[in-house]
């Protein structure tokens, strides 16, 4: 059954009958309980991805690797990160594969891409809350490309730890090319800290943003954040 499904996969596009791939779907689900099934499926998916596939089929494989992928899938997916037509599919999988190598592949790819691909990889590092990327992302807040600078600030906010807060605050002091993005990042950061019960750190960020020098909506958001910090304590 799986052989037939992988044969059908070669010519797959999103208009095809998904029932032809049902054996792959079943194996992906069964793989959660059975490591051998998962490993066999992962290996076959990696082979398929390294072979000749339509773009839609590559898309399908990346979605399945997001479910069953391990460190073994990282090299094949990393190879796609720099390709304009596949980068987002590879990121979809690498964001979800729970191994440090996946984050490392994303970090390494940063220096090989630019423009929207770089924005995407930055946001994937944010989605993974990759603390190892904080220094790199902190450097990118000052990037000449405003989209890259903005996505770096937002990713640091999503990571939401003390180091990312420090990087954002430092960026605010030294090179606020995109102050609104930095403020958004700081608000996200404080919210993440509040959720993880780091009230003092969150409160410190909110107090900064509640200052009169900030626009009304920023002050309002920061005030609400401060109230959340207080009500958690009260």
């Amino acid at each position: 059954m799986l052989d037939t499904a992988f044969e059908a996969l070669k010519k797959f596009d999103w208009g095809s009958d998904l029932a032809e791939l049902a054996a792959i779907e079943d194996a992906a689900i069964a793989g959660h309980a059975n490591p051998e099934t998962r490993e066999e499926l992962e290996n076959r998916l990696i082979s398929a991805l390294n072979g000749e596939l339509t773009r839609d089929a590559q898309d399908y494989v990346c979605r399945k690797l997001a479910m069953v992928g391990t460190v073994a899938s990282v090299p094949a997916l990393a190879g796609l990160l720099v390709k304009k037509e596949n980068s987002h599919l590879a990121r979809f999988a690498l964001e979800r594969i729970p191994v440090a190598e996946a984050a490392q592949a994303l970090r390494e790819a940063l220096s090989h891409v630019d423009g929207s691909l770089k924005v995407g990889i930055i946001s994937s590092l944010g989605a993974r809350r990759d603390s190892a990327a904080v220094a790199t992302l902190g450097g990118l807040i000052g990037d000449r490309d405003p989209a890259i600078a903005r996505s770096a600030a937002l990713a640091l906010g999503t990571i939401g730890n003390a180091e990312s807060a420090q990087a954002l605050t430092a960026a605010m002091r030294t090179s606020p090319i995109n102050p609104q993005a930095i403020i958004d990042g700081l608000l996200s950061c404080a919210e993440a800290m509040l959720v993880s019960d780091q009230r003092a750190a969150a409160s410190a960020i909110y107090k900064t943003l509640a200052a009169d020098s900030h626009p009304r909506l920023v002050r309002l958001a920061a005030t609400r954040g401060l109230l959340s910090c207080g009500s958690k304590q009260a």
Partner: protein
Amino acid sequence: MAPRMWQCLIVLSVWFVLPPTISRAADHPSDEFLQMIVQLIGNSDREFRAAGLEQVRTSVKGVPATKLFVAQLPKLDSAGQAALLSALADRGDAAARPAVVELVTVGRDEQVRAAALAALGSLGGTADLPLLIKALSSASAVERAAAQQSLVQTKGDTVNKKLVAESKSAAPAVKTALLEVLTIRRASDELPAFLAAVTDDNAQVRAAALSALGQLGHPEQIAGMLAGVLKSAKGNERDNAEKDVAAICSRIGNEDKRGSVLIDALNTVPVADRDELLSLVGRVGGKKLISFVADIAAGDDAARRKLAIDALSKWPDASVADQLLELISRATDAAERHLAFQAYVKIAAARDGRSDKQRLDRMKEAMKVAQTTEEQSLVINRTRTAYDVESLRFLLPFVDQPQFAQGACETIVEIAHHREVRDPNKAEFDKALDKVIETSKDPVVIDRAKRYQRGETWERPKK
């Protein structure tokens, strides 16, 4: 760099240079938090104020905090006072009550007094009933409404009894409001008080009492309510009074028992007054009452016959249709016959439990006995309640008759409106709608016909 950005950087720098300030604040988080809420309550920006009021509602529980918030009331403008009163009400701490009571009496304006009255509903108790009842006589509709709402909310085992006692000597408007409050409070132990009020000299009081009994009463109260029905003025008040009695009857599941209960209640009314209650009998309906009313409708007394035909026209279902058809055929008086005909068409068109085909069959019978153009037009008009392609076939020939054409066109589009009838018979409907477009002089009917041909719908304008 923009000056605004420099300001921002200075603030950030100060914050980073002075971490002890933050650590000191963290030593007394509750005080700092309370002060922040207090400042926000007094903020002139509504959204900042709302953020503070939300904390009053949900956070920092305890009497000291409540007292601190209450102490802000005198410092606020009217809108701020009203908003804080509402938040204190939601907070639900009775420690705020003395200040709220004070504002009911010395509040600067209507908005504040109304908010204070509204807050008493959750913060007050039986001791505040006199104040709230007094506010029911206020010249301000907003204050009256707030007081009434608070009376509904006030907790306490003796509240209903006290409200009933106050209602006995209250002015009609206040008495009406108190009866409405008792109804919403579901004061089912106070049915005697409602019964006593159904014959009040004031129409509003009567209506409130009957409405209360309609919602809370039992079959045992029906006899007492009939006195109120008889005292009510004919027209809207009488209709509503009858509906209140019918509401109790409708809660009796067994149809025969429903009839028996009503007959027993009618037997307590003086014979001379019973005919006036025939209309009520019609609203209640049921097999047991059909012959009782139909016999009167076929009797010798013309005035009683008219009342009985009116009663049959109010029957909740079509079970009296045959009796009405017989009355039409036997009537010797033209006006009486016409009355029976109108009643028959009304009953026949009712969307009760019958099928659309059954409704259409009744309409066809009505058309056979119709004697005037007006009666035929009535049948054509009411056929709209039979959602069936057969109704279309019945109506189409009338489109060719000038005296019926416009009415028939309108009824056809009414039936075509129903997609579940139209879609399975699209070709037939399209052809009929072509004819409607060609014949009708009403632009709305033409527009609707075209829409239905295109598979679109049409929204009836709100009256």
